[in-house]
């Protein structure tokens, strides 16, 4: 294990960068007027306006630099991580508050490792995708940076209260991102997002405090330390209630049917960067929480409620797919496809087999990349056409063949075409659950069919179909947009073709977690998926 505290460095790098940017801001002179008050006229009219002020440039480039640096630092976590081990690594522990015994306790295992990397990877992409954000740029970038620290902290905190602090810390910056820089219904969507999440997490705090209290009696000294709490016996009924409290918080985030109704609004109204991070990272925190805390702390209750969660997951898969079919708004379509895909993740997590769990974890990464890319593309589309209405789009492939091509690749990844990343995850999930939760796997397979229908149909309507004269002059990808999409697409292909390096690191941890809900011994050797 290397000596540097890689996790702390990664988590706090965005905040440190934010502090530097704040200090540099006065050097850019007085508050400019353009950045604050005069949104640039829509670019597609080709009107030239005065260039951005020094302050805006500082924050754009500065934030990009900070997020890239954070990504670089997070590679240190990857380098320091020993594959093939199931436990937590790179653990950092310090006492923060004596009473109550709150520790600054960080660590990663194979599951959270990739969540951290996914987050640091998607951040610079989101920043770059927000290059055309002209409204209150410094505040926008600051929200992104605070959000990044909170998200990263959530994935690596191993102290329950510390986790909760980061978990709640994500709420406000994301709320601002949606509410200030979102589209027409932004305030409604932002408040809905806030209230749902807050309501979900309220009981989580109560449950965490209850665990602390129990640990005082059971372990001789209260603690929020996840690893210590895992060894604690909790009465059956108590454990089930606590499980439900945790489940509520994470089911809202995932989101699990029927708590998903905030998602289409929030995803649709959020600015592109917000949508990418919501879909790419925030939803994963729900799934991650299920693995880490629900399975980790309450094995008995996890088995007891397994069927219920599986039913909800499968309903989500089918329901999300069906509702996506009837959307006219592309962004809403992608949002509902998220409900469906996250249903797959939960199915994998609760299937009770190593393949299911590994598939669930890698599908979390995949979904972050794929759906992130879809939101990026939809954002680019909207910037050009100012519509996301499928009925008003058509024939774009002729105007912008590269754009259409990238969209096709990403859509194919989302519908799990072999050779692309989506296949690896969904195949493993279905394989894993086929032996241990067969009826659910069979229904879930329907979700694959549905996703093929709605994605290809949407592609066909947008890119081919009738050409629209008002869409003439639709530009193809610009250099910056290449830079945004290229790394994401590269990873989509890379994971699809050669998932082994990822699975090698995920599997040991996944195996440990999967045993918790293992009710049926899956036959045969552990199969490896891949194209």
């Amino acid at each position, binding site marked *: 294990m290397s000596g540097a505290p890689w996790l702390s460095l990664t988590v706090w790098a965005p905040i440190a960068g934010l502090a530097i940017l704040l200090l540099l801001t006065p050097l850019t002179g007085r508050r400019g007027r353009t950045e604050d008050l005069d949104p640039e006229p829509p670019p597609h009219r080709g009107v030239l306006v005065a260039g951005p002020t020094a302050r805006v440039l500082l924050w754009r480039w500065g934030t990009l630099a900070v997020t890239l640096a954070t990504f670089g630092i997070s590679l240190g976590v990857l380098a320091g991580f020993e594959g093939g081990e199931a436990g937590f690594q790179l653990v950092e522990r310090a006492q923060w508050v004596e009473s109550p015994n709150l520790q600054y306790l960080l660590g990663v295992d194979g599951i959270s490792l990739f969540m951290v990397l996914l987050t640091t990877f998607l951040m610079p992409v989101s920043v770059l995708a927000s290059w055309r954000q002209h409204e209150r740029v410094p505040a926008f970038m600051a929200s992104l940076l605070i959000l990044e620290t909170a998200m990263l902290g959530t994935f690596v905190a191993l102290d329950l209260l510390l986790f909760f602090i*980061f978990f709640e810390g994500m*709420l*406000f910056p994301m709320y601002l991102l949606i509410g*200030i820089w979102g589209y027409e219904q932004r305030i409604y969507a932002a408040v809905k997002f806030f*209230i749902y999440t807050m309501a979900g997490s309220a009981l989580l*705090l109560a449950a965490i*405090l209850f665990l602390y*209290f129990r640990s005082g009696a059971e372990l001789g000294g209260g603690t929020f330390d996840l690893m210590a709490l895992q060894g604690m016996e909790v009465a059956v009924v108590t454990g089930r209630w606590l499980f439900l409290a945790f489940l509520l918080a994470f089911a809202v985030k995932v989101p699990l049917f029927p708590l998903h109704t905030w998602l289409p609004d929030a995803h649709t109204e959020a600015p592109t960067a917000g949508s990418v991070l919501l879909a790419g990272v925030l939803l994963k925190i729900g799934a991650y929480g299920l693995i880490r805390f629900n399975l980790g702390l309450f094995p008995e209750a996890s088995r007891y409620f397994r069927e219920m969660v599986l039913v909800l997951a499968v309903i989500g898969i089918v329901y999300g797919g069906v509702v996506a079919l009837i959307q006219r708004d592309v962004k809403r379509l992608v949002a509902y496809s998220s409900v469906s895909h996250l249903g797959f993740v939960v199915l994998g997590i609760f299937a009770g087999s190593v393949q299911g769990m590994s598939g669930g974890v890698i599908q979390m990464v995949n979904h972050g990349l794929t759906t992130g890319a879809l939101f990026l593309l939809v954002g680019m589309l909207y910037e050009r056409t100012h519509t996301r209405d499928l009925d008003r789009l058509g024939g774009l492939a002729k105007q912008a063949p590269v754009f259409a091509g990238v969209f096709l690749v990403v859509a194919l990844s989302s519908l799990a075409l072999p050779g692309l990343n989506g296949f690896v995850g969904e195949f493993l999930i279905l394989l894993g659950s086929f032996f241990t939760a067969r009826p659910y796997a069979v229904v879930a397979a329907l979700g694959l069919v549905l996703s093929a229908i709605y994605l290809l149909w949407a592609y066909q309507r947008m890119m081919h179909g009738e050409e629209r004269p008002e869409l003439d002059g639709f530009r193809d990808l610009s250099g910056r947009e290449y830079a945004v999409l290229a790394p994401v697409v590269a990873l989509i292909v890379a994971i699809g073709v050669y998932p082994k390096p990822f699975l090698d690191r995920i599997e040991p941890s996944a195996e440990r977690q999967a045993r918790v809900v293992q009710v049926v011994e899956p036959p045969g050797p552990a199969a490896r998926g891949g194209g």
Partner: protein
Amino acid sequence: MAERVAPEIVLRPILPEIIVAGAAMAILLLDAFRSSRDRRPLALLALAALAAAAASAIGLWSWDGASTILGGMVATDRYGVFFRLVILAVAALAVLLSMLDVDDDRGGEFYALLLFSTMGMSLLAVSADLIVVFLSLEILSLSLYVLVGSSPRRLASQEAAMKYFLLGAFSTAFLLYGIALAYGATGTTSLSGIAGALAGETGDLGLAMAAAALLTVGFAFKVAAVPFHMWTPDVYQGAPTAVTAFMSAGTKVAGFAALLRVASSALGPVAWDLTPALWALAALTMVVGSVLAIAQQDVKRLFAYSSVAHAGFVLVGVVAANQQGISGAMFYLVAYAAMILGAFGIVMIVAGRGEERTTMAAYAGLARRSPLLAAMLALFLLSLAGLPPTAGFIAKVLVFQAAVEAGHWALVVVGVLATVIAAYFYIRLIVVSYMEEPEDRGAIPTAPVPGVAVGLAAALTLVLGVLPFLLLDVLESASILRF
């Protein structure tokens, strides 16, 4: 033959009160002989007196004399010192806030009354006898009645003063009746004497229960717990905002200081019987305060209801009645004082001359007009809502944890649900200030001094949220009641 010994007069432990009262009288005198209408020198004198009182209070931290002085009237424990410091700080911030409108026609009596009230509060925190509790409550209330009505040009201010006076007098009657019954039950008014009589079962328990109930009602009025909160919104709205800030923080801190002391010492032996009542009081206060706040359109009323709800959260710590509960409630009070003072400070700055702009609409687009002000408002709101990394979050965790420890997990569930309700109206104000367009885009004029006061409150809110151990270490010894 028993010889009557006059109690030894030791005044050092009440030196802070003496300084504050002396300064108040000096201000009254100076004001009478002053020709200039500039109130700033008087404000500075008040600040100096508060600082001196705080210094002498700090000196009492390591007091090793008797645990009570003046014949058992005044306690000398660190608990009292701690609360005194909090109250003095609240008063100092209120003085700073009041310097926003230096040229209005309130005279020097404003600062004198503020200091008298402060003295009453700080005496309340150290009273070890129910008679002193009553006296100090009267000192603080009488001064506040006048302060609330000190905006002569606003009718609402007069109305609020009248309401506050009537209901305040009513509540004092409850308290006094409770004191009388306590004396009847135990033959003493000293807190430790009552506790001794009740523990030894030499007192009349039935009468003592009635006394406990009446005392609780009296305190519940002062700290604005539901269903004794009716006066709060009208009074908080009508009073000049600097006074609202002062009383919302100061009265609550002092009231809880006394309630905690009375409940855990004098009424300690009957705590078991009192707990269900306090439990209901806490639950009702949290829920009703939060629910009623949702419908408010006036920001002062909104914070008034929010302050009601917060009394409920502090009561959770009181209900827990263990060491964590007491220190949790103390932490909560400090955090609450910082954030409510800051919030009302911003209300005052936004309201401007004549206090007209206090509706939600006045906050539209605040973030564009005065970004720093909006950011601090957001910080206070997040803290009031109990979100990390603010003092309000740590405070809630502490009282909830104490309640879970004491077995009141149902109360914690009520509490977290109330938090969700409350979050709705806090973020509504954030929506207005960050996401709506302002009517005019000019920056809001901010005088530097009140700005500093709000800034200090904001810094405290953030520091206590990130480094809570700074205060928790102090509380370790301050939360032990001894006399």
